[in-house]
């Protein structure tokens, strides 16, 4: 029975996560074009970049930050906050555990780290080598007027700047070889403590997500910007890389799977045949570097980004204390350190009985279905019986 229950929850969650990944990352992009759905009007309750050329929904972090940057004092994002609070009040952080595409990717990176690491490394090396070749990132040369001109490696080669070409080739080689060598060193796995994670996520929630979009006015551009987006590894994964790779495709490949050049979801530049690849400069390189670092850390510790930096997870985490569906632990029967099954199966690497663990719980229900003492229980109102039945999960009863 216990085996079946364990198998069932993991199996169901894997399938739902896979569906969430497909939905969030774009397979159902056409839904957004079907009136009156217009899913692009609705921030999704998970972290997905709205610059993803194929995603059907809007990014919640981007939506909130965008309203903060409007006008002199910003505008309160009533709809985005209200929608996220509705989800939070009902499900707490469960969307992180069941639907978030970037969370799913982190789960995969960690679970299959031995195999995935090599596949991932090969793919990343090819993508980054391609990006170095076609985007200036750091490379360039000094023009006749003494100005520095950014130029990708391919242009340095084609235009005869051979010395600069080899210089930047060596610099890129050393930089990325150094970064990728991190994957080859056998570092020990580690767990981020709840208190340390709280400091990290409060920082990323307050500073780049709220304070900078509200108050940091760029004197050159005369506008404020979504500073969390500039750092977001999910945006790099689901928007930056696909945008660049789409641009590499031959123009006559479109319409691609129904993706016409006139579609609003067409990658930037395709409609007017403008190539965006030469636009990827230092900021783009920083995003790539930060993504590789996040992936590397994810192979050593579970869901580091969700635990330490995600502002949407932070927004939802407060709801874990009173949401309609939530996980509670009966400390009278919990065996704590002697058992630790909850810690072993938890995708967030938390011990359910630990202080502060509740706010990090993503409601994956692995602990509820696997706790041998039935100390981890699920609280849910009766109208959610159809969603989580007592047949498969330990349900906390009213006193």
């Amino acid at each position: 029975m216990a085996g079946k229950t364990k198998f069932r929850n993991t199996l169901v969650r894997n399938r739902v996560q896979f569906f969430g990944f497909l939905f969030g990352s774009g397979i159902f992009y056409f839904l957004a074009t079907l009136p009156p759905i217009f899913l692009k009007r609705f921030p999704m309750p998970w972290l997905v970049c709205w610059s993803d050329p194929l995603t059907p929904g809007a990014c919640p972090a981007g939506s909130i930050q965008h309203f903060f940057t409007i006008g002199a004092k910003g505008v309160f994002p009533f709809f985005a906050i209200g929608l996220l609070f509705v989800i939070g009040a009902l499900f707490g952080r469960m969307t992180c555990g069941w639907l978030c595409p970037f969370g799913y990717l982190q789960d995969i990176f960690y679970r299959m780290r031995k195999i995935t690491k090599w596949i991932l490394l090969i793919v990343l090396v090819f993508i980054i080598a391609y990006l170095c070749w076609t985007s200036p990132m750091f490379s360039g040369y000094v023009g006749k007027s003494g100005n520095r001109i950014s130029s990708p490696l391919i242009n340095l080669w084609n235009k005869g700047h051979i010395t600069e070409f080899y210089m930047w080739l060596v610099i890129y080689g050393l930089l990325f070889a150094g970064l990728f060598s991190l994957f080859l060193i056998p570092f020990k796995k580690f767990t981020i403590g709840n208190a340390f994670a709280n400091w990290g996520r409060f920082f990323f929630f307050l500073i780049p997500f709220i304070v900078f979009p509200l108050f940091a006015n760029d004197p050159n551009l005369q506008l404020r910007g979504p500073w969390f987006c500039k750092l977001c590894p999910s945006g790099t994964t689901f928007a930056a890389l696909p945008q660049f790779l789409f641009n590499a495709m031959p123009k006559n490949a479109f319409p691609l799977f129904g993706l016409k050049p006139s579609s609003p979801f067409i990658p930037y530049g395709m409609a007017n045949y403008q190539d965006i690849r030469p636009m990827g400069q230092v900021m783009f390189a920083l995003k790539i570097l930060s993504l590789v670092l996040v992936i590397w850390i994810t192979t050593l510790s579970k869901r580091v980004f969700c635990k330490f930096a995600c502002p949407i997870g932070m927004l939802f985490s407060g709801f874990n204390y009173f949401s309609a569906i939530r996980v509670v632990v009966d400390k009278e029967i919990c065996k704590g350190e002697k058992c630790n099954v909850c810690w072993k199966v938890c995708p967030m690497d938390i011990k359910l009985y630990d202080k502060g663990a509740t706010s990090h719980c993503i409601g994956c229900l692995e602990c509820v279905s696997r706790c041998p003492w039935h100390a981890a229980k699920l609280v849910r109102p009766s109208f959610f019986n159809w969603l989580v039945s007592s047949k498969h999960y330990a349900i906390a009863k009213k006193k």
Partner: protein
Amino acid sequence: MPDEKKAEVTIADRSPGFLYLVVLLFSVFLMLIGMGVFEKIGIPIASQLPEIYSTALTLCLSCIGLGEINFVFLAMIAGLFIVTLILYFVVVKLIGGKNGRKN
């Protein structure tokens, strides 16, 4: 082996409560304000859905790492992050910050 009998007789004193309902209603109210429903009755907030929709259809250069970046601001964020980490270690050193354990 798990103590099945003990587990069966122990009941967690939890129920969903009503706070989530209060928050749910408040959140729906926020959503309705954001949809411009109360514009006619004096709350001067227009629907925010077109703004989200139009922004979602515009490529955000920040998200994909194009566009300009203010390196002073970036350095400020990095500096504040380092200060936060130092503060964390100082606080842990002074008042202790280990997570609770149950043996």
